[in-house]
């Protein structure tokens, strides 16, 4: 029960913190709840648990987290499982030998190399195309502009499987399917093109967000002071976009590294990527080697995403 007239006095009399870190007022020895404490104050931003003391809400949150993350945690834990047969479902003992096996698996390492190559090439191209697209749409007005905007956003919206099939058909039509015989890295061309296609809209989106905070008068000021269009772009716009470009690059890299569906349709026997290789390994048998490989992939993605978020936060 709260006694509004007494809250001030409550605060002065002193208060203690209960287990949830909420300030509980003490009035004449009886603990009372000052309603003001539920909202965030000063240095303590309101966390999920502060919004309600209702157990039902907390339970829902817990269940959701569990549902999402427990499978992944299990995957990681079982990569250390000492079990060769019978699937990787019963814990037999701790070992790191499957990490060794994974790193020693030549086909797997080639696939990993392919994935990295594709990711780097795809990222560079996606960021360049994405920046150009974003600046172009931001700067110019022209007929059918909304159609062009739609086209740029389309690859995000199209179901990956449709995209995969379409690309496979495209490449077979243009006879590039046989490129599996070509030397590295040209044999990866199909996949790189496919990755660029679905990556650059995301890059464009990230950069467009960053563009929204750009004061166009800054670019005009540069021109006014004697800079050519290109110089103004280079000296003023690019520095402003840099956080967005870095974020776009990290995003594109992650998308490319993790991609399965589109890659599955555009890769061939000699051009296997890491996720595709893991998939084919699963079809044989489920050993902790696969868990180990997957864990490495998860870790890489985590680190990159973490870096992306950190960079975006520290940048002005």
């Amino acid at each position, binding site marked *: 029960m709260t006694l509004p007239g007494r809250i001030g006095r409550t605060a002065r009399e002193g208060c203690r913190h209960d287990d949830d870190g909420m300030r509980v007022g003490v009035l004449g020895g009886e603990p009372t709840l000052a309603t003001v404490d539920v909202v965030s104050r000063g240095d303590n931003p309101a966390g999920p648990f502060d919004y309600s003391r209702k157990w039902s809400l907390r339970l829902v949150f817990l269940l959701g987290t569990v549902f999402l993350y427990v499978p992944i945690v299990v995957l990681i834990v079982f990569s250390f499982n000492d079990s060769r047969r019978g699937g990787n479902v019963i814990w037999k003992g701790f070992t790191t030998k499957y990490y060794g096996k994974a790193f020693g698996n030549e086909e797997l390492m080639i696939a990993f190399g392919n994935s990295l190559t594709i990711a780097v090439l795809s990222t560079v191209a996606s960021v360049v195309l994405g920046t150009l697209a974003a600046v172009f749409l931001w700067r110019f007005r022209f007929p059918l502009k909304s159609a062009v905007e739609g086209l740029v956003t389309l690859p995000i919206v199209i179901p990956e499987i449709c995209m995969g099939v379409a690309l496979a058909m495209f490449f077979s039509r243009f006879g590039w399917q046989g490129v599996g015989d070509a030397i590295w890295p040209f044999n990866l061309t199909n996949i790189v093109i496919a990755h660029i296609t679905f990556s650059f809209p995301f890059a464009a989106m990230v950069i467009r967000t960053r563009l929204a905070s750009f*004061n166009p008068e800054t670019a*005009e000021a540069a021109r006014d002071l004697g800079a050519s269009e290109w110089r103004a772009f280079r000296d003023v716009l690019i520095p402003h976009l840099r956080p967005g470009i870095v974020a776009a690059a990290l995003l594109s890299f992650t998308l490319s590294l993790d991609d399965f569906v589109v890659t599955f349709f555009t890769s061939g026997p000699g051009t296997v990527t890491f996720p595709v290789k893991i998939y084919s390994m699963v079809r044989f048998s489920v050993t902790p080697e696969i868990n180990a490989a997957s864990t490495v992939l998860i870790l890489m993605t985590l680190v990159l995403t973490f870096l992306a978020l950190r960079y975006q936060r520290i940048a002005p």
Partner: protein
Amino acid sequence: MIASRDAFRQAASTDAPRTPAAVEPLLSIEGVSKRFGAVEVLVDLSLTVAPGEIFALLGPSGCGKSTLLRLVAGFETPSEGRILLDGADVTRVAPNRRPVNMVFQSYAVFPHMTVAENVGYGLTVDRIARDEIDRRVEEALEQVQLDGFAARRPEQLSGGQRQRVALARALIKRPRLLLLDEPLSALDAKLRDAMRLELVKLQESVGITFVIVTHDQSEALAMADRVAVLEGGRLRQVARPETLYRRPADAFVADFIGTVHAFPVRRIAVESDSLDLEVERLGTLSLPATLPSGCLPGEQGDDGAVLVVRPEHIGVATGDVPADHVRLSGQLGDIAFQGDHSVVEIALGDGSALSAVVDEHTTDALQKVGAGTPVTAHWSIADMNLLPRDASASRGKYP
């Protein structure tokens, strides 16, 4: 009739700039129009700016003054007309090739560069030697009282300081013309007054021609040598501040600079040495031929003109009034005390009200008699202006 028209024309003042007429104008805008799609932002505008003067473009929001500035800077191209700088046609010249620099409304200081790098940017682009740049940057910073700020970053500066960086950055290139877009609007009142003085002093020491865009008439009047009043994309009048105040060219200018009371003129009869007017609420008045006016008689017909007077020129009397003054009877209303003067409201017989600005002495006298007392508002006919109601009859266009 013709003789009278001549008399009126002669009495009109010509508003040449302070520099001798023989000097070639620095900036010449000839018949410039600008359309954005179907919207006409500027219509057939012509004016000149003399070297060394502070020229203001004044008008309400949306009148096209900022567009005109951008046309001069080179960020837009006119739909019609020409822009000449030092006699050369720069209408289609890119902004980076014009000897014109601009201080933007948002200052547009480069956030990722230091103050020194900002100020030196224009010289870096011109590929001037490093040590020369450093020397000139130091000079420029001193000029705007920012010495010692070279290594600071824009986010560490206040608004006023950022503006000075923008100023230094533009002036370091020694342009022929400096454009300023609403230079004082983002500053707080006290800083505004200080900056206004600083800008005028800076212009005097540097000698560069300034063109300032503003919507604040007191700013324009205080700073500029000449002011161009724009409205709806058209030039209404170009004149010295004093002339704009005393002899506005039309009803819009009269009301935009300060305030006026306007009395519609029903009929104008031209006599040999005067104009006989039939004016609403004031009756018949006779304007002497020697009085300059904003419009020429007979050119706009009946009901096309107004007679205006400023509250500052209206006196409020309880008793006698000079015989040759225009007068209106009413009742004393609210007195708004403002210190050295007061704004007095006079309720007229027909329900309308007149405001008059009176001095301390008169305020005392009026405060003693109290509201409701019959009083007479009066003013000299010489303080009145005969103006066209409609803009097209305005003779405000100057070459």
